């Protein structure tokens, strides 16, 4: 990653980590550093989490700080609110984003609104972690990507790292944030690659996207698992003589509008890629941002390459639901040859 300081690598203070290891490392670090940190979730203790995100943490920090809860998402989020208001810094793991809905009321009405309702007297500095997205041949209902349900909820921030470095840095930033942060962890990338990640503490600023590929003809905007789809599409497009710039959005609320505006004003064209359904998807917000900031620069209608307006299909058909490099390339060609 661009942020990785050369010094880190040189003096051996980095380590090869997958995204899930980087997440684990971030939590370990904060459990060590801040005794207000407490982790709650289903199967996160002895079992170390169904994806092993909390592997070894209960052993190291005890059952009072890494807590296996009953099977009850509203209970997890609801009691975390009480813990957060009363001095702790809970990290609540929701086993899959598709199972967060029982806690939706607690998040919508309390996690996000308590600061406002109490004029900042009570605050809820908590982190909710949720694996999300399709493409790993999971059983049905395990593959939702419904980020908009949380970006349309004033009072909570939403981040979505696509790689190990950002995952650890954003997670630590979330844990230090005075307000609630939802961390969406794209399952497909949990083990998809290893990278050098600093072993020490660092943060990636919430609210900032990153240019992960520079280009001149068209801007691709993506996050989570879609970043690598965008990258593959950009490579294919390059062979066709089209130069793509790629923004990894990283934070879904608040959105980094400047990075989008600057890039689109340079390239004059945009393709947005996300796995959520088209209708109501965050892609529409991005279209609005471009409309608001860069109307006169645009040379073609913005393309959105997204999941369809259908429930995420069973895994034998999920490849037909998810954006593919081929679909993105068609989107790119469409805006370029408009």
């Amino acid at each position, binding site marked *: 990653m661009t942020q990785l300081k050369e010094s880190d690598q040189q003096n051996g203070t980095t380590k090869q980590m997958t995204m899930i290891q980087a997440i684990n490392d971030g939590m370990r670090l904060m459990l060590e550093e801040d005794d207000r940190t407490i982790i709650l979730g289903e199967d996160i203790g002895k079992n170390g989490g169904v994806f092993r995100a909390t592997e070894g943490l209960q052993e190291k920090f005890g059952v009072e700080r890494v807590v296996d809860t009953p099977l009850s998402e509203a209970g997890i989020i609801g009691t975390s609110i009480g813990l957060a208001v009363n*001095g702790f810094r809970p990290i609540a793991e929701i086993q899959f984003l598709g199972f967060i809905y029982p806690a939706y009321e607690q998040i919508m009405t309390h996690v996000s609104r308590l600061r406002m309702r109490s*004029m900042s007297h009570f605050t809820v500095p908590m982190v909710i972690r949720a694996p999300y997205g399709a493409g790993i041949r999971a059983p049905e209902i395990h593959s939702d990507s419904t980020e908009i349900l949380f970006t349309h909820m004033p009072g909570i921030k939403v981040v979505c790292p696509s790689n190990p470095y950002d995952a650890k840095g954003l997670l630590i930033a979330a844990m230090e944030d005075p307000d609630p942060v939802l961390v969406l962890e794209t399952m497909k990338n949990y083990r998809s690659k290893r990278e050098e990640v600093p072993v020490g503490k660092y943060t990636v600023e919430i609210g900032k996207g990153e240019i992960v590929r520079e280009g001149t003809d068209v801007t691709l905007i993506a996050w989570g698992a879609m970043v690598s789809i965008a990258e593959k599409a950009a490579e294919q497009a390059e062979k066709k003589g089209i130069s793509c710039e790629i923004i990894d959005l990283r934070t879904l609320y608040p959105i980094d509008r400047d990075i989008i505006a600057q890039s689109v004003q340079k390239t004059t064209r945009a393709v947005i890629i996300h796995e959520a359904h088209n209708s109501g998807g965050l892609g529409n917000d991005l279209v609005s941002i471009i409309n608001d900031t860069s109307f006169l620069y645009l040379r073609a209608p913005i393309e959105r390459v997204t999941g369809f307006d259908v429930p995420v299909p069973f895994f034998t058909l999920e490849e037909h639901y998810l954006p593919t490099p081929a679909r993105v390339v068609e989107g790119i060609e469409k805006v370029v040859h408009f």
Partner: protein
Amino acid sequence: MEQNYPMKRIIDDQGNLVDASFEDMIDEKLVKELYYNMIRIRTYDRKAINLQRQGRLGTYAPFEGQEAAQVGSALALNSDDWVFPTYRDHGATITFGKSMARTFLYWNGRVEGCVPPEGKNIFPPAVPIATQLPHAAGAAWAEKLRGTRNASIAYFGDGATSEGDFHEGLNFASVFQVPVVFFNQNNGYAISVPIEKQMNSATIAQKSVAYGMPGVRIDGNDCLSVYFETKKAFDHARNGDGPTLIEAVTWRTGAHTTADDPSKYRPKEQGEHIVDPITRIELFMKNYGYWDDQWVQDIKAKTTIEVEQAVEEMENFPPPNVNDVFDHVFAEMPTQLAEQKEAYLAHLERQ
């Protein structure tokens, strides 16, 4: 099941002591404190209804009839405990130390009404039913983890027992054995829905069985019973023995809110036999020598002044500030929200 959860009472409808085991624990200070606070909050409540009728307050949820339950429980708390009220529990929160003026402000559509006095752990009223139960468990859990002797109380109604959050809150509290008291005011109705349509169980207390926690059913109009049973549950909690479910059987004399008409759904006779909780304690005070005409006159006068001053404070409160629409969403305002605010304030300037 009902026989497993007999309704406990210390004084009966005629103000007679019916459970002599409490005799030694009852003293003048306690009786007068209970009485005084019940008068205070009733004066407050009636004033609020009047203000609403005069258009000086928004929709208001009265608690008349439930004063014994609210005062008896609130007086059982320690000052560092945590209180999680509903929209009908400002009798309890005022008793615990919430400002009357702020409480009026709440009912006047002012967010300032949610802010408790410094050092008093009073949550904003839970509006979505039963959502406060897990919060109370969580705050209590934090106390347990820190090793204090503080505890939480969650107030909730009979209707609230039907929500999933009731169940999840009690389950968490019992699994983690946290110091919380689940204080149910069973006033027989959830808006228009009578308890027989709300649940098939004969009592609310028996729902404790599902969580392996103590459950107790008390006469919620007997302020002494409420006080001592709540105290007992708090002692239990503070000693590390976990949560308790208390069912305080009571009655809402008036409407669900000032926007509601109970004659549509409640037979007129239904509450007629119920002796008002303040009358009950008055009878007791007279029967047992605690009554003092002068003192009663004094506190009533004092209370009237207190309430009037609260009205004045509310009405002289600085007007709502448009900045508050934007300023308390995040600790630090995101750029896009700052821009929205700026644009809107500029728009207002132009008007």
